[in-house]
């Protein structure tokens, strides 16, 4: 009871709640769409969350009110239309510059971005285009201290034809862009579907990863006993690498959503 009281006290302050354990955890707003943002933040802060993911500027003050950080924001970015096509670059550059500026003003650490779908484009050409495009925005990201996160998604089940669907491809892009402010969002759920070998891949590529997402495999539900990964082990492996970013829960709850979220937070408190 004393601990809960302390957590509530922190939540009312201006700074984010101290994470339980070594990892800063977050939760994707869209997975809790039936719950008001106030309720999500209040209960999230109580259970040890440090942030809320994929949230827009209108929501940032509410999130801050509970001592949480808007951990990543999306702006106008769309999964199928991204940096892999040169004709998108002007538009994406303008959109993301605006978003980076707003994020910097509000101390939002990350902005999400996407490769786009292949639509017949070779992986080599798509990669070259992503590198060219992301190079255009790396300076503004660096100057503003905001990290642009290129997300790895599965193209097998959820996002057919999405190009940034393998770690090696994403890492090639990030290496070539060569900025401390342009990195990968390694979605563990998506990468277990696409390639497996999660812990080794994370260890080998941690310097290119700024953000993590979770989700039970194969159903994208709770991180529970019915799915195939041992999340606590994965969380420990990430914490052991001294990872300083956020690991955000992005699964669709099948039971009471806040109970499921609390269980996930407890599981990843390492």
């Amino acid at each position, binding site marked *: 009871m004393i601990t809960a009281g302390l957590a509530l006290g922190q939540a009312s302050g201006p700074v984010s709640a101290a994470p339980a354990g070594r990892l800063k955890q977050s939760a994707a707003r869209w997975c809790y769409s039936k719950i008001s943002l106030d309720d999500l933040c209040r209960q999230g802060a109580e259970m040890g969350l440090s942030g809320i993911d994929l949230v827009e500027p209108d929501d940032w003050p509410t999130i801050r009110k509970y001592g949480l950080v808007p951990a990543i924001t999306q702006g106008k970015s769309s999964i199928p239309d991204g940096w892999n096509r040169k004709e998108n670059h002007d538009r994406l550059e303008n959109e993301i510059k605006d978003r980076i500026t707003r994020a910097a003003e509000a101390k939002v650490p990350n902005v999400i971005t996407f490769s786009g779908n292949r639509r017949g484009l070779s992986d080599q050409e798509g990669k070259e285009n992503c590198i060219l495009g992301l190079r255009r925005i790396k300076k503004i990201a660096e100057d503003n201290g905001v990290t642009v996160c290129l997300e790895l998604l599965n193209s097998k089940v959820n996002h057919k034809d999405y190009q940034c669907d393998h770690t090696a491809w994403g890492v090639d892009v990030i290496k070539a862009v060569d900025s401390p402010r342009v990195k990968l969002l390694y979605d563990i759920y998506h990468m277990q579907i696409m390639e497996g070998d999660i812990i080794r891949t994370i260890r080998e590529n941690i310097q290119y990863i700024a953000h993590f997402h979770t989700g039970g495999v194969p159903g994208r539900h709770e991180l529970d006993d019915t799915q*195939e990964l*041992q999340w606590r082990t994965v969380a420990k492996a990430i914490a052991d690498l001294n990872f300083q970013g956020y690991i955000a829960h992005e699964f669709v709850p099948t039971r009471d959503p806040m109970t499921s979220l609390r269980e996930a937070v407890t599981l990843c408190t390492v």
Partner: protein
Amino acid sequence: MVRNGRIRQSLAYWCLNATACKWDINRICETAVRLGCLSIELVPTEFWPAVRKHQLQIAVAHNGMPEPVFAKGLNNPRYHEEVIARTRQTIDQCADCGIPNVIAFTGYKWIDADDPESGEIALAQGAENTVKGLAELARYAGEKRVTVVLEQLNSRDQSDPMKGHPGYQGDDIDYCAEIVRQVGSPRVKLLFDIYHVATMNGDVIRRLRQYRDWIGHVHTAGVPGRCELDDQQEIHYPAVMRTLLEIGYQGYVGHEFIPTRDPVEALAQAVECCDV
């Protein structure tokens, strides 16, 4: 100790003999019996009687190829004669002893399995060759009521020859499953090694469901590292085992990991964790 027994568990001989363990066959068998395992697998022929003496099954037999057994395989026409002859001989022995399965491999992708500089067999060609070889074995295995199980292996782990096999052509479970599907015989199935699949492909539970009709045998090990099935590795084995029950899998699950601590304790934990 097995209590439910819905998953029929087996121990791989080499993990307890050709590693730091160096257990002899009797010790391996006694441990299996004590844990409630029903089989020891991949046992050298000379020890088959010892296994039988302990009233244990041999879930899978090696195909009689020299070590490393997976180097020269059916993807390469130059090894067909030898692999098929040795496998047929093993099938005869299996039939005599009531052993249900014999293992098969695609082999290394190189034109000369001993020489990585010799050029590569194209993936599609390797598959076509493997289908031909397995189809020939299927006819013989069918007469003898033995099943040939094709194993996928990971080519990613380069740290230790016991943990990964760079150069192995059938390193993709979808590739191996397609070969088995093309052979189209109830006597040629997939050896679904959860460790190797999780290392190369991931999406383990979905793939078990997808290939339910083609799975003839299953192996385990912790990922990464081919270690114990404990909380130091990433695969949640109970959920994977429950998926095997869900799909009606009737075969054995062979523990094929290299113990990094007390092997008795490690095996007991693995057996308990898979006894869903």
